[in-house]
């Protein structure tokens, strides 16, 4: 059994903020004890709404921020501390693409120059090799040659995102974090980019962490999915099963809120209450104020993420090891 490429253990990240000019400093716990692993060549989807901590997790996993507790291991070794030479060198092995491709590109440089930049930074090969590699990259993301000479504002949203992808893949990284890469694109362009990502993953044996709020896109591209709520993983399982028979009440509500044209699966679940505020996390299970099935224990004790079936873990007192309730696949709350 090969070791996972990326292993995250009880990661914690807290921000200190002040509300207003003279408010008391508040602690906002964005990531609250996240444990994950991603095998080589696999895509793990990370799903959640705003305040879930999924973007912060993405940054922590890459070493773009230092966790306050817990550890991240890449290829069996702990990530080097930020801004060290080792850390800079590790950038060639792991990359990230974001939601806004226009913001990620330098408006003053033509595309080809930007795709080439990582090669220059990491001093890969010589001049001729780098030029050839840039051409190869542009072809692999299916951008025509003339696009290389253009500037970001002259391209469409889909083309920009491919350019960002080409740049991210320049140094042949092992690991790619995608943070909402298709959310700002039209549906038909989303399909193009998603297909491209899937193809590239197969060709290059890429390992990916795909962060999104769009369940359908996540399901399409991921082998396994983790659902986050207020900094914690509430459900973890295979992409095929998780959305078909979600166990955690929050996952159920998410699936219900993401309708697919055609027959509706299960009942319509509408959560009550306000969206979660990371600065005012409820005690016990963070989801209990909005949970239709909450009971006394939920208010005081935070459930642990526990394996309830092969390849499925849920953090919920209803499905925990001491619970006698059998939650059959497909049953609806």
């Amino acid at each position, binding site marked *: 059994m090969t070791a996972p490429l990326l292993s995250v253990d009880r990661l914690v990240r807290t921000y200190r903020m002040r509300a207003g000019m003279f408010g008391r400093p508040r602690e906002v716990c964005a990531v609250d004890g996240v444990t994950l692993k991603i095998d080589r060549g696999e895509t793990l989807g990370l799903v959640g709404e705003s305040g879930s901590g999924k973007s912060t997790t993405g940054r922590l996993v890459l070493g773009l921020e230092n966790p306050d507790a817990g550890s991240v291991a890449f290829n069996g070794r702990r990530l080097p501390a930020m801004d060290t030479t080792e850390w800079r060198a590790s950038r060639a092995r792991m990359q990230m693409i974001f939601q806004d491709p226009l913001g990620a590109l330098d408006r003053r440089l033509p595309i080809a120059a930007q795709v080439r930049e990582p090669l220059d930074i990491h001093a890969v090969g010589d001049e001729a090799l780098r030029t050839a590699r840039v051409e190869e990259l542009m072809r692999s993301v299916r951008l025509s040659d003339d696009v290389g000479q253009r500037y970001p504002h002259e391209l469409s949203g889909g083309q920009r995102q491919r350019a960002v992808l080409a740049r991210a893949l320049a140094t042949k990284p092992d690991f790619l974090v995608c943070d909402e890469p298709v959310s700002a694109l039209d549906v038909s362009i989303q399909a193009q980019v998603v297909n491209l990502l899937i193809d590239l993953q197969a060709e290059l044996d890429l390992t990916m962490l795909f962060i999104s709020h769009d369940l*359908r896109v996540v399901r399409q591209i991921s082998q396994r999915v983790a659902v986050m709520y207020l900094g914690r993983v509430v459900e973890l399982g295979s992409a095929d099963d998780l959305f078909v028979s979600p166990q955690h009440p929050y996952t159920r509500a998410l699936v219900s809120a*993401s309708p697919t044209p055609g027959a509706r699966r299960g009942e319509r679940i509408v959560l009550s209450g306000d969206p979660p505020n990371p600065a005012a996390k409820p005690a016990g299970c963070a989801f209990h104020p909005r949970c239709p099935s909450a009971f006394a224990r939920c208010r005081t004790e935070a459930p642990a993420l526990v394996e309830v079936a092969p390849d499925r873990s849920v953090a919920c007192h209803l499905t925990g090891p001491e619970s006698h309730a059998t939650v059959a696949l497909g049953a609806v709350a």
Partner: protein
Amino acid sequence: MQPLVSLDGLTVAFNGVKVLDGISLSVGRGEAVGLVGESGSGKSVTWLAALGLLPKTAAVSGSVKLEGTEILGASPSTMDRVRGGRVAMIFQDPASALNPVLTIRRQVGESLALHRGLSGAAIHAEARRLLDLVGIPDAERRLSAYPHEFSGGQNQRIMIAMALAGNPDLLIADEPTTALDATIQAQILELIRRVRRETGMAIVLISHDLGVVAENCDRVAVMYAGRVVEEAPSAELFDDPRHPYAHGLIGSLPPIDGPRRRLTAIAGTVPDPKAMPQGCAFAPRCVHAAALCGTKPPRLRAVGENRRVACVIDQPVRATDIIGQAAE
């Protein structure tokens, strides 16, 4: 029966560039119509034009009838009465759609005063009732709050309350949930459904999210590059889309269950309004395009009982054609 609102040949041009090219659409009393399209389709412009909300630089022509009466080009005072009183509109991004320096009571009360002739204590009481109706907790105190003190979902509820204040017959919801989280989106859509059940209000739901539209609308119209390309009852459209664009659009939605299939990726991009192709606007990207498609734009013609398609190809495009069709 006369439709509540009917658009006929609605055309909009900015500085000589056509962005809407002869839109014909109607909404019956109490009906829920969905309007789907991607950027550049003109789905928002259609209703902004119908309500006279476009800037003066827009050249709007065609016909917009409200219960048989033409309102396109009507006087400003007539339009002021129609807007909010007969047809209300809510927008995307509720946080910036509310005036930051006016209280909620002031903003909701404005509609109440304009369309229901209320004043003083009556406004306060009715505004309160509306906030309760849309599910804002602690309504009494919240009336004197400002928009920045609410969350995105709550702001959208307030917008709905404001829209309902005038007792409109039709609500145009322009991407009302796009800027909101999925679970909050579900809440807002549930609210809209409830209001419709209770008041019999008609709704036009504009969205790029096919699932949302499929779930909440009786009929759906698909727009592309300023034209309606297909219009059908919701279930029929999603089961069996006829127009190649509608087909491609539905095929590009990843399925949430069942076998994974390669997504349909429509090659190319939406044409620039300044350089629209002659003939069918979708032809350059269409896998079924024939010579005929490049001559003149196809008109919406009836196909079956309550369907219209703007395509010259007769045979229906089947769902089985989707697999393996992902051209890049």
